[in-house]
């Protein structure tokens, strides 16, 4: 037993060019950024304004940044997978060694779901929920920061695995007995376990926070049935987080015990039960899909009314459908293993409950379509993504209903058809929503719009690229191609694989357009400035404050008297041709910045890394330091400061100016 546990120089894969070159580039970028920040003297600013921030809007932005970076990383994995398969037909072996390819598909799934989509969805929930509810903050601001930094340290662990050691070769859900020590003796699965465990706790914290915020912190007058649809979906998603993520924690803890101390939860021998893992992990994993997609439905439910100039069609049925999906999504997990011998009755129950979800989703789809019907539809970029979503998601839903029929599932199970299906719903549902939401709320977050031309180019390339990539996979699935193949034996599959690879190239062009759009918009930010706080003629309360909002969101808490609160007050003001009386200002308290989130995550990362490499002393030291940090934080007396009257008055003045600008007829 050495001081560094299992860690030695041989953990760095010096003989494999791809991970080494990638990690060298990553390290260069990282150290370059750090050096730049040091030279320019940005650290005090970064520390004060970002690393210790407890402002829900900034935490939302941080979540967004993390998610976007991980999305790029996951996309790089996807490019490698598609090119590898297209290049390795017949006798060919492609360019990736099998064990590296296995790590790539595991990393792709893990990163895209848990470190890409999840933070991006949490970014929207964090940024929007308090603004839409008309309150100044989330329920637990400091705790919220802890949640974000834990997620970030989990993501860091996954990326460290690229350079130090290896990642799991088991798929994005490490099924035993393959993931048990006997079959996966390396540190790959351990990286997975600790990264996902740590970030899962972060997500649970975020869920508790959002749930409490929605249930207990709405502004005066905002009853449940006056809440914007996004808040409903954020609440449903948080309910699912609270119900499902502890199952993930438990499952990963059990597998950890199996691997570290030789217990027998999931081993193939001595009374272990691998099937129990599959049940438990999908009891989390299926709701997880809805945790991701429900807030995305909320995003679309905000975009369709705004760009159709009409209230959301069937608001109450939308609420009911959301809660219906929330409940039923917990009852369908077994459809992930129809073929594993549960028997006819069980399969029938889960087949029917899975299909029934399509009813709730169908209600939503019709509501969005009817919202557009008879409205004045403006084809701005967010609306393009939303309409692209409807087309894409419907096909994903249809193939989902097909897969929910057990006999059909026996044929398509574990095939590329399945791969195409879930990309159809996750890309069509979640990724399109994230880009729609990005275009829609970007002016609110940063104070200027995004360049529309590049946005439209990005949308069309992504939309076409998506179909070109995944339609061939449906065909390949029906031809019998299973997923996760390192090389492909049948030459007749190659044309389809090549088409799919071409689709990835189109998608790549879309990604480049998206990045170009950000850069171009930043350079033209003065021309694209949003002075009114309400660039799209919005309907909910976040548009009633300035863009970007002051740190306390609202100088005076709004008072809500109807659904679509801001729309109503705008109409009244327009009718009276005046912006309303100046409200009475009262001082209030806001939470202080705190380093506790950053330190907790630092120790969590250290602990995780030490556990992965069996460096026991470091793990114990990290735990003790974390407890000490907890006590020191708890000893703090004042967590809040009073916002000065001048600050409040100046924010309110700016908002009044913005509202008056809205009153003026458009040039």
């Amino acid at each position, binding site marked *: 037993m050495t001081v560094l546990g299992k860690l030695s120089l041989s953990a760095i894969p010096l003989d494999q060019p791809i991970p080494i070159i990638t990690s060298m580039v990553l390290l260069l970028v990282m150290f370059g950024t750090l050096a730049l920040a040091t030279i320019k003297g940005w650290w005090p600013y970064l520390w004060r304004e970002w690393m210790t921030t407890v402002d829900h809007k900034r935490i939302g932005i941080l979540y967004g940044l993390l998610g976007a970076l991980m999305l790029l990383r996951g996309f790089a994995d996807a490019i490698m997978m598609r090119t590898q398969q297209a290049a390795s037909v017949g006798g060919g072996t492609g360019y990736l060694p099998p064990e590296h390819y296995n790590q790539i598909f595991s990393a792709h799934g893990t990163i895209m779901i848990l470190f890409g989509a999840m933070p991006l969805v949490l970014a929207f929930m964090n940024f929007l929920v308090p603004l839409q509810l008309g309150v100044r903050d989330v329920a637990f601001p400091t705790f919220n920061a802890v949640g974000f930094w834990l997620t970030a340290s989990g993501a860091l662990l996954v990326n460290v695995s690229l350079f130090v050691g290896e990642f799991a070769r088991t798929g994005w859900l490490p099924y035993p007995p393959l993931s048990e020590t006997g079959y996966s003796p390396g540190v790959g699965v351990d990286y997975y376990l600790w990264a996902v465990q740590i970030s899962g706790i972060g997500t649970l914290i975020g869920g508790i926070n959002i749930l409490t915020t929605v249930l207990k912190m*709405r502004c005066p007058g905002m009853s449940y049935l006056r809440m914007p649809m996004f808040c409903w979906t954020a609440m449903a998603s948080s309910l699912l987080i609270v*119900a499902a993520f502890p199952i993930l924690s438990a*499952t990963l803890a059990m597998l950890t015990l199996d691997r570290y101390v030789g217990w027998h939860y999931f081993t193939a021998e001595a009374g272990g039960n691998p099937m129990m893992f599959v049940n438990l992990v999908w009891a989390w994993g299926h709701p997880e899909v809805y945790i991701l997609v429900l807030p995305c439905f909320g995003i679309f439910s905000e975009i369709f009314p705004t760009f159709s100039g009409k209230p959301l069609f069937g608001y109450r049925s939308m609420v009911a459908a959301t809660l219906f999906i929330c409940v039923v999504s917990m009852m369908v997990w077994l459809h992930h293993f129809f073929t594993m011998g549960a028997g006819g009755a069980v399969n029938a129950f889960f087949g029917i409950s899975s299909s029934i979800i399509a009813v709730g989703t169908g209600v939503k789809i019709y509501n969005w379509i009817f919202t557009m019907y008879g409205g004045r539809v403006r084809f701005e970029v967010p609306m393009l993504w939303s309409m692209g979503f409807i087309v894409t998601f419907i096909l994903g839903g249809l193939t989902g209903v097909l897969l929910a029929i057990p006999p059909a599932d026996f044929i398509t199970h574990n095939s590329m058809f399945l791969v195409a299906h879930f990309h159809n719903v996750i890309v069509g549902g979640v990724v399109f929503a994230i880009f729609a939401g990005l275009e829609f709320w970007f002016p609110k977050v940063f104070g200027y719009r995004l360049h529309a031309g590049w946005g439209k180019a990005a949308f069309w390339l992504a939309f076409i690229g998506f179909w070109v990539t995944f339609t061939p996979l449906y065909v390949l699935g029906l031809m019998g191609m299973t997923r996760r193949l390192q090389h492909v034996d049948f030459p007749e599959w190659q044309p389809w694989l090549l088409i799919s690879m071409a689709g990835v190239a189109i998608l790549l062009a879309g990604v480049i357009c998206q990045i170009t759009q950000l850069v171009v918009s930043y350079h033209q930010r003065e021309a694209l400035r949003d002075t009114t706080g309400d660039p799209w003629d919005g309907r909910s309360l976040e548009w009633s404050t300035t863009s970007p909002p002051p740190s306390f969101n609202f100088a005076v808490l709004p008072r809500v008297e109807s659904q679509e609160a801001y729309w109503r007050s705008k109409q009244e003001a327009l009718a009276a041709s005046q912006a309303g009386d100046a409200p009475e200002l009262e001082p209030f308290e806001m939470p202080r910045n705190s380093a506790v989130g950053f330190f907790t995550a630092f120790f969590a990362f250290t602990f995780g890394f030490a556990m992965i490499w069996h460096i026991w002393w470091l793990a114990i030291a990290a735990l003790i330091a974390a407890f000490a940090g907890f006590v020191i934080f708890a000893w703090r007396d004042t967590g809040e400061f009073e916002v000065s009257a001048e600050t409040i008055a100046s924010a309110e003045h700016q908002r009044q100016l913005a509202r008056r600008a809205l009153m003026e007829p458009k040039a």
Partner: protein
Amino acid sequence: MSGVQFPASHEAADRLRNRPDLRAKDPVPALPGTGQGETGPADKRILVSYGFWIYLLSDIVLFSAFFAAFAVQHGASAGGPRMPQIVDVGRAALETGLLLASSYTCMLSFAATHRKNLLWTQIFLAVTGLLGLAFVLLEAQEFFDLAARGITPQRSGMLTAFFGLVGLHGLHVSLGGLWLGTMMAQVQVKGFTTQIVHRLTCFNLFWHTLDIVWIGIFTIVYLMGGAS
């Protein structure tokens, strides 16, 4: 009431008590500061206990996964000892008694907190901690006894599930004890500030929840498991 603010639920209860004409089926007007209906954001105390309740629910879900594992594996003894051979119901009953008593003293400490009585709060917290410590020590003794007989979690799936479930609860009680120590120090140094009373509320909720979980373990693992 000597200036001590009761939680809103107490106020609501009092109001119902004083107004016999108000029946439960009549709509009760929402109280300001509870975050119900249209009354605006709840105050800090409500937020803290509400959020902590939600955390506790998630903790119960965590336990439920370990309960499920035990339910699946309680017969998977892999040729080793079976449940009735490892269960000592007498000791488990004693543990149950200790934990229930600690819940009672914990509640007494909270009553003292409500009266802002530092001495009795500390005394009852200390008694709660000692009872919890005795519980953990008994459980450790049980684990060591079993290990001495060669009965370890590595032996079979059943034992894994047994040690996992009981151990997880023991870990919670131990961490609760650590928290309790921290709280006693804080109460002593800072007195009953708003923040500290909020934290004591959370600690109480946590401790009682562990009691409820233990009732499940005692029933399912020791009584039912020991009898099967």
